[in-house]
């Protein structure tokens, strides 16, 4: 089984190190013994066979240069592709799929978000620099939308592993128990989360 991780315009939607989420998923998948292929997504035709799509955070100029983003993000939701959209990627995803969000005063700080997916609950820590006040981190259709930008999965490995588990399940497989090789990374992630909320 080879998992296909899609990355939407990886070269443009990486303003805050958002593409690190792809490398975190790839590294952890390898540790679990799962083969991974990372594939660039630029149009709807690139979505074929994508198990998980990551949509990062981009500058105003980056989004302005991407043609058909709204249509593609609507197609992703319609096709129920498991997705992680962060920062402006989450805001664009919400707008493309008629999810109303409220704007207010911009805040720029580390935040703690609670995410509920079915009976699973995650306490996530990451940096948000947004004027979107009510989105936080939400499960929407088959997408996780989060205003926490940057390397969200690095600091929150429990969410990275849930995504891998979900991808494996959809392919009829099970994620094996967490290998010891990830213990040091998880300890650093835990320390970084703790530091972020000082």
């Amino acid at each position: 089984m080879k998992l296909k991780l899609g990355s939407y315009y990886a070269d443009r939607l990486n303003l805050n190190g958002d593409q690190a989420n792809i490398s975190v998923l790839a590294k952890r998948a390898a540790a679990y013994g799962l083969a991974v292929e990372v594939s660039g997504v630029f149009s709807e035709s690139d979505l074929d066979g994508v198990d998980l799509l990551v949509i990062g955070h981009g500058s105003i100029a980056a989004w302005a240069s991407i043609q058909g983003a709204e249509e593609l993000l609507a197609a992703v939701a319609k096709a129920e592709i498991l997705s992680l959209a962060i920062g402006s990627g989450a805001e664009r995803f919400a707008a493309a799929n008629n999810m109303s969000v409220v704007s207010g005063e911009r805040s720029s700080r580390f935040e703690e978000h609670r995410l509920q997916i079915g009976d699973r609950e995650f306490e996530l820590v990451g940096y948000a620099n947004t004027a979107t006040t009510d989105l936080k981190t939400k499960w929407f259709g088959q997408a996780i939308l989060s205003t926490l930008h940057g390397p969200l999965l690095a600091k929150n490995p429990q969410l990275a592993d849930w995504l891998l588990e979900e991808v494996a399940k959809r392919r009829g497989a099970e994620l094996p128990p967490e290998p010891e090789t990830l213990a040091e990374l998880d300890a650093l992630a835990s320390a970084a989360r703790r530091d972020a909320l000082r």
Partner: protein
Amino acid sequence: MRYAPALLFARLLRWGIRRVRKGGGSALPGVLLARLAPGILYRVLSSFRDGLVVITGSAGKSTTTKMAVAILEAHGVEVFTNPTTANILQGFYSTIAAQASLSGKVRGQVAVLEMDEGHAAELVSKVKPKHSVILNVVEDQLDRFVDPAYVAEKLLKVAQATTGTVHLNADDQNLVAFESKLATGAKPPHSDRVVIWFGLDEVIANHGRGLGYAPTYSAPLARPAVQTQVFSLQDRATRVKTSRGELGFALPARGSHFAVDAVAAISLCETLLAEPDLALFAKTLDEIPPVFARGEIIEVEGQRLELVLVQNPASTQLNIDALSSNLECIYFGIGRDVHDPSWLWTVTLPDWRAVAITAGYNANEAALFLKYSGVEPGQVIPDDIPASLEAFLALPAPSSGIKTLIISADVMRRMRRHLGFETPEAVRQ
């Protein structure tokens, strides 16, 4: 004399703090002076015979300012300038608190100030610069500026407020876009404003990862006619062609971004000086010491330490790329100044196997970044900079004889304080 009491209070506060803490005392007097006499800043900056020069942009402000001031002083010009660490409004007040007479006067024919891009836009709404140098727009301090487009807007305000010459970097498409916005409709005192472009030869500008300016992701605008250009760069040896001739000198450190700083300073000084002596330009630039840990080598306890500043994605990438590829003993320190360490994850590290010590306020996130990048973070020492530095110094000397510290400004400041350097510029014992 209406500013005398405020200046006296600020001066006393500075004196008191410096008695308690060596090298300290620069920030609070500025805060006090800004509170007691906010108008003094605008009065002082409007008082120079040859006007106010603003040097701003995302990266390279310190080096460019240092180079320009050195060239001007070598030509006998008396310059009022600010220290590297004081480039925001409060810092200008601190500089005035330190340098003004009690009557509120400071010495100098011209003020050449390095300015933070956010604060520059605010300041020029009150004092119009006669000349400005705008270096670039990079993806920097996004926790504060949010988006490079907003930085470009602030820099455009500086250019539009300038009454004399605006020196712009022709290799940054964000700034090339200013050309049409500056060309038409200017009214007095801006109607005589002239835009002068500086830059690097195309091959040099595009070498390696390029100069790291914020991408515009749009069709490239035509490069304007460049008046002052670097046409040769071999390691640190640089040759520049100006409208008056050619000059050659060595940069204070390797890296094409330093060549940008040099050519910007040359462009400005050619405008400011009535009789610019290019040979003196070259001699002065040759003698510029490294600025505030951009590739400087210091000696501590008989060991040679190379300091590399981590400031924003582009300059960090360029500074790391410019290092030797086979470093043996590395200290990686990310301090409190990096409010959002997310951007670290945009940096591509060379083929390092490990660093020896990861330190600073953000040590754990830095270690996580290193480990996911395939680099072992070594000993992780958050917060305690003196202990981490001592641990690093205790490690055996590498065969190259040089240990490398890749550090943010906050870590560097704490190290300097621990080592007893009293000012940011004091690097050698």
